[in-house]
């Protein structure tokens, strides 16, 4: 096995183009587990912890650009206002030890349907910035996940950053698991209200081969909210309920060790109703 330690993104890209099979290694919370358990023996590891630019985030226009290696701990501390959905989800990732090392780049790279950071990124139409020795691409998050643990990255590409609009309204994330910590989601859901555009965004986790948006539920709720953004009042029960049903209907869960498909659909409807109730109550508070 080879072990590469680039100290700049350009060097990392060069190494990746020369060794397309090299596995990027950063926080190690996925890759090291596979190696420890002998599930994976890559020919080469590409350690990205020496690439400082991957650890930086910045604000531009009305967006944030979050470097692929920015740890969840930093996102929680510094991005709770700009990216509240992502920050709330980050708080539920693993434990302090894992949050100090794990990053959004890892969640995107692993492309597990259970990645906690992924539903909130879907809910805000985030954009993944990839980089190679010859090219830089921006891939809409909705086109990034191709299947279970498969993404749109080319063998010579690395994830550089993720871009998200600065939150224009309340955002939430909720997940179901056996404990309040160290939980791989049985299912999860994120909701973002966008009062500026009159739309809502959603993201479902752990309930389909990939993380996905509940587009029908988004269309339904956006239409229902059209006349309610200004001078908002509590939402009628049937709107909240129908939204939950449409979210559950968008999922295509399976039975596995963590839960049954039926349970996941049931729980998703509840998470959707709760997050809608929370975010709408916040919208009302802000409007007062």
């Amino acid at each position, binding site marked *: 096995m080879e072990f590469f330690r680039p100290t700049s993104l350009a060097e990392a890209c060069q190494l990746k183009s020369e060794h397309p099979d090299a596995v990027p290694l950063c926080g190690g*919370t996925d890759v*090291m*587990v596979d190696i*420890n358990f002998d599930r994976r023996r890559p020919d080469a590891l590409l350690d990205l912890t020496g690439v400082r630019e991957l650890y930086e985030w910045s604000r531009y226009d009305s967006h944030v650009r979050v470097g692929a290696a920015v740890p969840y*701990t930093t996102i929680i501390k510094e991005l709770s206002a700009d990216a509240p959905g992502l920050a709330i989800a980050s708080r539920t990732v693993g434990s302090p*030890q*894992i949050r100090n090392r794990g990053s959004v780049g890892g969640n995107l790279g692993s492309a597990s349907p259970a990645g906690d950071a992924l539903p909130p990124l879907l809910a805000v139409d985030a954009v993944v910035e990839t980089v190679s020795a010859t090219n830089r691409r921006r891939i809409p998050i909705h086109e990034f996940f191709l299947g279970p643990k498969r993404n749109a990255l080319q063998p010579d590409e690395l994830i550089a950053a993720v871009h998200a609009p600065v939150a224009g309204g309340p955002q939430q994330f909720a997940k179901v698991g056996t404990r309040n910590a160290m939980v791989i989601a049985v299912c999860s859901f994120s909701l973002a209200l966008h009062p500026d555009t009159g739309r809502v965004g959603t993201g479902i986790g752990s309930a389909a081969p990939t993380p996905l948006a509940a587009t029908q539920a988004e269309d339904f709720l956006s239409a229902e909210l059209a006349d309610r953004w200004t001078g908002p009042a509590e939402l009628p029960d049937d709107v909240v309920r129908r939204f939950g049903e449409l979210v559950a209907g968008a999922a295509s869960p399976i039975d596995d060790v963590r839960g049954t498909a039926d349970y996941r659909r049931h729980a998703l409807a509840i998470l959707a109703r709760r997050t809608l109730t929370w975010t709408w109550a916040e919208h009302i508070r802000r409007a007062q």
Partner: protein
Amino acid sequence: MTIRVTMTVNGEPLTADDVWEGESLLHVLRERLGLPGSKNACEQGECGSCTVLLGGEVVCACLVGAGQAEGADIVTVEGLGDGEQLATIQQTFVAAGAVQCGFCTPGLLITAFDLLNRDPDPSDATIREALAGNLCRCTGYEKILDAVRLAAERAR
């Protein structure tokens, strides 16, 4: 092919030779540097028994690649005390009866030590959240919480 890894562990510069590139920091500490205080249990970041400070932050040593620790500053449970004198958090773990089989203790000590450095007067909720990544199958955690509260009290 193997690599050489040099790091500072508990204030002392140490070098490990012939390290396999896929090896974890935990393995290097325990098997190559003679520091078996950090425990090896789940090897997947679930249990926290291998918790060490890496650059001043708590991490699971089983999830850090050996090569990633090159040049790093590491504190293990062996580095908490000062010669014969145990650190306050170690003394209060003993005083509160927070140690039973002892397997989780090194990781919990590092995590609690880090918590009290960052927050000398943590609320119960903060303690629970800070220790959420360290599993103990003996104590039921109550005595561990007592030990952390006692250490905070003694530091005042």
